[in-house]
């Protein structure tokens, strides 16, 4: 066991970004509070993305009032599967994934059945703000349920893997893919037990994984290797991450993207305070990469062209 001072010294040497540093030096300085609603409200994000021509899952319905819930059953009848999300939800809380129906009941992603009453209760909880950040009344989005790319079939369990890319001043600086496990209950959140796998930015190949705090090579449920997978549409993904800067106005932002079998990459949400576990998944600290971009900023060489920014990232931010 290492003593805390040794750990701190080593972490500082690799430039690991801590929570205090992330908040004080990046989030507070580069993310203006007036732009927060753009990412905190998923409906706004979606509309902005559509306006900017970025791909998002199709919106089926928006629920703003309690009485709209009852009408939802008929409204959603044409869709076999769909996802209900609170617009201000955080960390995947309150997301309900419906994969099908059985009579009057809904079949959830895990396979369990849900009566109409339970379904309505879940939605009304969401409306009253149970899952939103500050507990304020919220609205709900019902949208297209992603059919995930078969590339990931062998390395996920019961849910949709997504790609998280940290974009700093429009430069994609670090990326990982999050694979759901049995432990995470199909959710792609690392603190709930999903696996994070670091992605090499130039090549789009997965490099190493982390589960909890431990490095892993195989998916714990499917036992398939999670290293060396090629992420499809990688350049497109990087471009989406780069363009989310202009979209959100936020300098330091986490972009969550899913890969659909037919539609390709779709933006799920943006995050103004992206987590730090991406560094464990990549085995590297964020600071050196962020510094490299700050260096560009100081010398006045920041690019306004997302394609140039992706090219810079590809030539500088390799994860080995």
């Amino acid at each position, binding site marked *: 066991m*290492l003593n*805390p001072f*040794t*750990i*701190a*010294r*080593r*972490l*500082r*040497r*690799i430039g*690991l970004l*801590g*929570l*205090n*540093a992330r*908040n*004080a*030096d990046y989030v507070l300085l580069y993310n203006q509070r007036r732009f927060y609603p753009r990412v905190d409200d998923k409906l706004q994000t979606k509309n902005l993305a559509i306006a900017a021509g970025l791909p998002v899952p199709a919106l089926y319905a928006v629920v703003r009032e*309690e009485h709209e819930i009852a009408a939802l059953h008929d409204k959603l009848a044409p869709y076999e599967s769909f996802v209900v999300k609170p617009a201000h939800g955080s960390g995947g*809380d309150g997301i309900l994934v419906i994969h099908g129906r059985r009579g009057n009941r809904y079949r959830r992603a895990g396979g369990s059945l849900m009566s109409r*009453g*339970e379904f*309505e*209760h879940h939605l*009304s*909880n969401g409306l*009253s*703000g*149970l899952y939103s950040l500050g507990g304020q009344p919220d609205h709900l989005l019902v949208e297209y349920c992603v059919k995930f790319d078969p590339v990931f079939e062998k390395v996920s369990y019961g849910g949709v893997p997504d790609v998280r890319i940290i974009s700093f001043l429009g430069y994609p600086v670090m990326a990982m893919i999050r694979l759901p496990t049995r432990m995470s209950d199909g959710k792609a959140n690392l603190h*709930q037990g999903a696996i994070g796998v670091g992605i090499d930015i130039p090549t789009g190949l997965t490099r190493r994984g*982390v589960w909890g*705090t*431990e*490095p892993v090579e195989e998916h714990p449920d499917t036992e398939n290797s999670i290293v060396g997978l090629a992420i499809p549409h990688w350049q497109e993904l990087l471009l989406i991450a780069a363009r989310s800067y202009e979209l959100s106005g936020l300098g330091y932002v986490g972009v969550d993207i899913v890969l659909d079998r037919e539609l390709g990459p779709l933006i799920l949400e943006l995050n103004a305070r992206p987590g*730090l576990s991406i*560094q*464990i998944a990549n*085995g590297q*600290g964020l600071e050196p990469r962020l510094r490299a971009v700050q260096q560009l900023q100081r010398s006045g060489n920041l690019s306004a062209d997302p394609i140039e920014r992706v090219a810079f990232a590809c030539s500088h931010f390799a994860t080995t």
Partner: protein
Amino acid sequence: MRKTQLYLVAALMIVIGLAAFYYKWHVLSFPLTPVEQTEVWDIQARVEYQPRSGPNQVTLQLPMNSPGFSILDERFMARGYGMTIERDRAGSGREVQWRIRRARGDQALYYRATVYRDGAVEAPGDRPGQSQPPELEEAETAAANALLEQVREQSVDSASFASRLLREFSEPSPSPEVALLLRERASANDRAQFAVELLAIRNIAARWVHALELGVDGAGELRPYLQIYDTDARIWRMLDAQGRIGWPDNLLVWSRGDRPVLDVDGARGGRFDIRVQSSLVDSLEAAVKRLEFRDENLVAYSLLSLPLQTQDVYKILLMVPIGAFIMLLLRNLIGVKTFGTFMPVLIALSFKWTSLLAGVILFVLVVGMGLLVRFYMERLKLLLVPRLTSILIVVVLIMAFVSVLSNRLGLEVGLSIALFPMIIMTMTIERVSVAWDERGPGYAMKMAAGSLLIACLAYLVMSWPPLEHLVFVFPEVLLVLLGLTLLLGRYSGYRLTELFRFRALARSQTDG
């Protein structure tokens, strides 16, 4: 630029806070710790007499304006008696008159006072009027003149004259003149009165007082002390029976000598005794009194001027910043996660009324029972606000139930549960239950236990008496706290838990 400004503001806060603290501590001598204590004396005067048939009146002289001492508190105990307290017009004396229409058997009346030394000196006063010279027989006149002449030869001023005279009085083998003069004046009080009269012959302003020496605990005695007026300093100087000049340290002036201390039904009589018991009290009380004597405003614009009840509230409120600061340290330096930002501080606050162990037990009891109800309500599919309201109602009912039950069982501590913040408990129940559903029971329990643990820690710090005292008496230390908080506001180093979280990254590295 922004950082320099921050450091400047923080430094300013710390300097102002420390300077004010130093001034109050060093110059105004506010006590630094609550254990600093001041000696006080409880004095009990007991009057005993055989009543005559018909109305009885007892008059007792009371201490007032004794230089060097102040009365903190006084009580009168006389069952069945009517009581009036009178001050004489000159403001130099005070007496209590007890009256009863019909009394039977031995009567006992009590006067109790608590006095403490305030270090105040007697204010200068005008030259008093002259006493009457004594009426003497011929032989006595000759003796008095001889004595005064003899004393005059051995003295330089009025003080030494009086001192010499008293020494002549107290000689074990008195001179023939003294023996003659004092033959009819055997008691100490009569001698003191006589000395005053003799001094009047020589135009020396003098008086005598009954005074009590606060030396040892136990029975005390009022003794006569002579005072002569110093025309230069315009103050009274004290002489004891042996003629020693100066105020003894622990001498409490009880009343003027020209009136009997105790007067029963217009004639001297009855028995009178005094007991003295010294003890220690909080010196803050004494400091405030002292300060009030020196400069009213310093106390008038401080927390110490507030009514006691409000003071008690502020004693607790002023500890909240301390608790919040602990939360800041735990969250931003250690990296502990809790339910709600300041929820543990508010819980810790409520522990103040219950004591720690009882507080934790009661809190777990209420939240646990509330959780059971909450889990049942989950099945009723209530909306958020109605659900919170119903949990709140249940929490209040549980609190009432616990109070009633503990009252029946004779557990007094259960009653203090009424002071628990029920809104906080309601929110805690809701948050624990949501975390339970969302993140699993293990996570919820871990968070709840962590919050409770921090609440305990915050309580232990917040209820540490020296700190409590320090913040209440020196509220300006909160400015220092504000300065430190501002400094920590830009702390961007690692949190302790992050070292643990990212340790795998560090392990793969080598020192090079």
